[in-house]
């Protein structure tokens, strides 16, 4: 599995090498220009410290876990050993991350110590790629292209790796119970192998000290995403979703690879420690408002990166793969498609934030892309019935928030929201997964109700409730509120992009509504349930072998009045200790992280939109990394007559509570049974249907891209069949036809052949006759031929005297 990612990177290397070679002069110029523009190259991204070698455990423990799970699969181990290995390895990686974090931040980070001097270190595993190709004067000169297997650890890396490894450990534990239905097959070990490989890839992505290693991780997480979405590989919809995710990501990866190559062409290196000091030169230009002096190539690189980020993080126009990715097992949805992998795009933007500041177009694209995605996904999420899909759309929407936050120059807000979102979205997904697991795959919110009142579902309900509060942005007591508020405040404070603030504010209201729509329908209200149809499906390796619902029939069309009948023999399967512990941990953690993302008034009074940016933990983590550069302009807009952040806070409290209230009225008070609520009586014409059909975006893509390609491929097919194959077949047909004509002469009768042979000989004799006879001489066969005369002379000589 590791090998599978390597060829990609090698091809990539060859490509980038070829491009870079041709653009060698440009690179030289650029380097010269950079050093010219920045006589005193800043310390941006420079290595300022060291880390012990055990930091390497962070990526390589999960890799070890992957190998061991593979061994388990080969040895046909059919117990929970792979889960044990995985959780142990990931917990080890988490411990190593905590250790590395302590060393990096020096213990000053927790709870807003304001320590602005976190170090950056590079830990090298081994030389990976390093070669010369120019006519170097001496072989000992520095190589022209270096991409080592080494890891760049600064506070931003730590921020990401803390929640990646931490959540991966918890979700691995959760999955040990969730995936238990597959214990009898090889699926369990396969699941965990891919799971560990994912964490390894994610570590390469986040920790790599050069763009190429980031790209390796980028492709690696894409591969693992593909493998895990298509985990139920006998289910056509899962396979289709896996392919869709992979192909959509390829479009984005194209942008990233182009950006990578351009980076090398422009800067002559892909290593962060060498790259960022060069970027500093351009950044100085940008901060002095001399945008026009920055070469266009530098400005294009972040735009290309944005394409990659939008593909990986499911933003417009490439977001359609993420909702379909919910075909994978729920732990995968929680870890990869909600908490970690999809934030890789945000990481990319945050890591290259200085470069983004050097471009006139990149950040507005990021901001508008994010804001529009947030709005669009929220509207779709409002109309869906599948709770996992609603969560998927909310993920897309929240990722939009993060991008919008970065785009309006609020790197701290964006990264903080990544951090808080990872916790509460994982929790929401895991709660939905517990419901799905317990009700035989039922995900339709019209067929489930009152889960909170059933025995054994208290912790799930609690976790779901906390998650919903966070997602809805319930004021003050949720981490999600503070991080979202930071983004909206940054947007409101940004003069040019205040419209984005309004969009995000509106979206926050929609989010609160659809979040609590799920909660009120599924967890509150009268107890009622229709089990899903997974009992029937488990025979074909579907996975969730509950052994409970033998007689359960998925009741498709009936109203709630008949539900008792339908679920007569079905007993919901309440989650076990593993799921409950994980959910409880996450619920508690989501409260514990509040101080990490909020200053609690310490620095609010600076009156500046970014005033508190240096005060609390996540701000420190972002601020002391490469994302911590000062944005070029510092004028801040007012909002509602207050500073943007204050105003945004009150506004988002209002819309959040309003959204929850609307959901309460429509889906709790106005509801008698699971299937019918007042909300269904509200007719919005075609809008509702259109939102239910995801605004027909899939259909539009089908019409705009798939159909033309299909028509084109039919044309090419016809061309191939008629012209190319036609010519080749014609060549084949010519001797064949000739043979067909001539074969009739082969009668098989001996006499025939003899006659024809005789005729042929006769013809040859006649031909020789006519050719040898001089034209006017006619038939002079009687004349003695000249050679005879000659011969007779010889003969006369030989027998002298006998004849005259």
């Amino acid at each position, binding site marked *: 599995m590791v090998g599978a990612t390597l060829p990609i990177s090698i091809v990539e290397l060859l490509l980038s090498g070829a491009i870079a070679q041709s653009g060698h002069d440009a690179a030289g110029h650029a380097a010269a220009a950079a050093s010219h523009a920045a006589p005193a190259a800043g310390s941006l991204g420079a290595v300022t410290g060291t880390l012990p070698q055990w930091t390497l455990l962070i990526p390589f423990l999960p890799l070890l876990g992957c190998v061991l799970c593979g061994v388990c699969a080969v040895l046909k181990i059919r117990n929970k050993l792979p889960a044990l290995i995985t959780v142990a390895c990931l917990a080890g990686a988490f411990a190593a991350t905590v250790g590395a974090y302590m060393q990096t931040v020096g213990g000053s980070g927790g709870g807003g110590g304001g320590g602005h001097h976190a170090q950056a270190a590079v830990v090298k595993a081994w030389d990976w790629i390093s070669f010369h190709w120019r006519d170097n004067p001496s072989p000992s000169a520095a190589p022209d292209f270096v991409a080592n297997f080494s890891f760049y650890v600064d506070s931003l890396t730590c921020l990401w790796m803390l929640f990646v490894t931490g959540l991966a450990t918890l979700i691995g534990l959760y999955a040990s119970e969730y995936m238990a239905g597959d214990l009898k097959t090889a699926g369990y070990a396969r699941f965990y192998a891919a799971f560990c490989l994912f964490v390894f890839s994610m570590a390469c992505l986040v920790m790599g000290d050069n763009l190429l290693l980031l790209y390796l991780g980028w492709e690696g997480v894409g591969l693992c995403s593909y493998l895990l979405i298509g985990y139920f590989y006998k289910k056509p919809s899962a396979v289709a979703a896996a392919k869709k995710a992979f192909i959509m990501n390829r479009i984005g990866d194209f942008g990233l690879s182009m950006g990578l190559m351009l980076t090398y062409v422009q800067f002559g290196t892909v290593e962060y420690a060498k790259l960022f000091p060069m970027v500093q030169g351009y950044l100085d230009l940008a901060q002095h408002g001399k945008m026009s002096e920055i070469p266009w190539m530098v400005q294009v690189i972040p735009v290309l990166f944005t394409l990659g980020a939008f593909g990986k993080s499911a933003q417009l126009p490439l977001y359609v793969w993420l909702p379909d990715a919910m075909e994978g097992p729920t732990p995968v949805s929680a870890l990869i498609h909600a908490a970690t992998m999809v934030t890789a795009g945000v990481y990319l933007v945050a890591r290259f934030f200085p470069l983004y500041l050097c471009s006139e177009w990149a950040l507005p694209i990021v901001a508008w892309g994010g804001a529009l995605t947030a709005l669009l996904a929220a509207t779709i999420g409002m109309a869906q019935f599948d709770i996992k899909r609603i969560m998927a759309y909310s993920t897309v929407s929240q990722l939009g928030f993060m991008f919008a936050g970065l785009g309006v120059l609020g790197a701290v807000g964006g990264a903080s929201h990544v951090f808080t979102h990872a916790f509460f979205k994982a929790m929401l997904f895991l709660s939905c997964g517990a419901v799905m697991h317990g009700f035989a795959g039922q995900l339709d919110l019209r067929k489930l109700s009152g889960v909170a009142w059933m025995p054994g579902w208290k912790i799930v309900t609690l976790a779901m409730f906390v998650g919903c509060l966070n997602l809805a942005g319930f004021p003050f007591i949720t981490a999600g509120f503070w991080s979202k508020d930071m983004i909206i405040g940054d947007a409101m404070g940004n003069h040019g992009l205040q419209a984005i603030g309004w969009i995000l504010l509106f979206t926050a209201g929609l989010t609160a509504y659809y979040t609590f729509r799920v909660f009120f329908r599924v967890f509150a209200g009268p107890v009622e349930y229709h089990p899903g149809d997974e009992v029937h499906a488990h025979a074909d390796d579907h996975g969730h072998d509950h052994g409970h619902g033998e007689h359960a029939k998925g009741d498709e069309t009936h109203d709630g009045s008949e539900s008792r009948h339908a679920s007569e023999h079905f007993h919901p399967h309440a989650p076990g200790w593993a799921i409950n512990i994980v959910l409880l941990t996450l619920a508690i953690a989501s409260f514990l992280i509040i101080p990490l993302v909020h200053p609690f008034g310490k620095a609010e009074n600076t009156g500046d939109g970014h005033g508190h940016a240096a005060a609390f933990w996540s701000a420190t983590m972002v601020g002391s990394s490469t994302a911590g550069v000062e944005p070029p302009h510092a004028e801040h807009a007012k909002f509602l007559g207050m500073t943007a952040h204050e105003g945004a806070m009150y506004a988002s409290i209002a819309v959040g509570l309003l959204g929850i209230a609307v959901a309460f009225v429509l889906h709790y008070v106005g509801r008698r049974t699971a299937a019918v609520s007042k909300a269904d009586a509200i007719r919005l014409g075609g809008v509702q249907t259109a939102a239910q059909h995801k605004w027909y975006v899939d259909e539009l893509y089908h019409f705009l891209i798939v159909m033309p390609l299909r028509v084109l491929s039919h044309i090419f097919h016809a061309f191939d069949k008629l012209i190319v194959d036609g010519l080749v077949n014609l060549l084949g047909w010519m001797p064949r036809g000739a043979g067909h004509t001539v*074969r*009739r*002469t*082969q*009668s*098989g*009768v*001996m*006499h025939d052949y*003899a*006659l024809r042979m*005789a005729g042929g000989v006769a013809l040859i004799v006649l031909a020789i006759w006519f050719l040898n006879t001089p034209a006017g001489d006619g038939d002079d066969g*009687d004349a*003695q031929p000249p050679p*005879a005369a000659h*011969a*007779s002379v010889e*003969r006369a000589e030989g*027998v002298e*005297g*006998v004849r005259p």
Partner: protein
Amino acid sequence: MLDTLTLAQASAPAPMQTGTLHHYLVVSALLFVIGLIGFVSRRNLIIMFLCTELMFQAAGIALIAFSRFWLNHTGETFVIFVLTIAAAEAALALALVVLLFRRKESLDGAKWSEMRG
């Protein structure tokens, strides 16, 4: 030495006249054509084989005649070899005919037409 040669040559016949040669060649040609017609028109394998022998001998006659005409021994030598080989070939061919007869219980050469295209 020259005398012995001369003696040997003294009893040698006079060279053949052109007219005489023509007679021989006509006989040879007739014999060849008879053989050819026989081969083409008859279906009995043995008769066909006999006809090939006829054609062989027609060629032999022509060779001997030319040899006599030119007063050298080339043609005669050649014919001696041809006769030898023809004898061997006759043995082989007759054996083949026997085998063929065993396969089809018939001597009809036209029955062997598997090579029809």
